[in-house]
């Protein structure tokens, strides 16, 4: 079964600084990887996804993520954070093959200080 680990529970970053959120997955075959963002009391919004191809994927809101098979990682990055990026971020993995359920990591809460 697939699983996801997000090692950082909480990250605080200054506005304008860069941000990197770590995600490690466990899955035997080629995984389908996602990053979602959730504001308090809100639903899950997809930031970006990786299915195949170019290992550096661009998402919405200026986010990007890099798939590294050798490290089983799919880290999320943003060069310059905005106060509106304060939220909880979830990494998720799916296994495809007509099985679309997602396994989520525990999430990383991002706080942005002025």
């Amino acid at each position, binding site marked *: 079964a697939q699983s996801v680990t997000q090692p950082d529970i909480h990250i605080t970053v200054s506005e304008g600084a860069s941000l990197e959120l770590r995600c490690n997955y466990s899955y035997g075959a080629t995984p389908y990887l996602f990053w979602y963002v959730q504001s308090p*009391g809100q*639903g899950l919004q*997809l930031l970006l996804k990786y299915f195949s191809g170019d290992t550096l994927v661009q998402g919405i809101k200026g986010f990007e993520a890099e798939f590294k098979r050798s490290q089983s990682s799919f880290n999320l990055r943003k060069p310059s954070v905005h106060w509106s990026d304060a939220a909880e971020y979830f990494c998720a993995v*799916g296994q495809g093959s*007509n*099985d*679309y359920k*997602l396994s989520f990591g525990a999430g990383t809460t991002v706080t942005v200080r002025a």
Partner: protein
Amino acid sequence: AAGVIQSPRHLIKEKRETATLKCYPIPRHDTVYWYQQGPGQDPQFLISFYEKMQSDKGSIPDRFSAQQFSDYHSELNMSSLELGDSALYFCASIPLAGSSYNEQFFGPGTRLTVL
């Protein structure tokens, strides 16, 4: 563009009561997934439907049941509610399952509070 609709958005129930949560997928999406997100937890898969048939089941209590109707909307029925059922319940819809892997479109969730 139409999104996934969930109703109600908020629900407050007493212990041992029942609750029904509804999910209306995006038009022409035939697959629905349900997830439960407890306070401070990550979403956990409950159950899924494809073409009105249950396609997969996760850690869903026996007190819960669900179904998908002919118009593809889905309902999650929860009986004998417990305090631990308080959570945010998401549904997600997927277009035309059976094709290449597709993105799940999540609804805004129903926040259930059991008192």
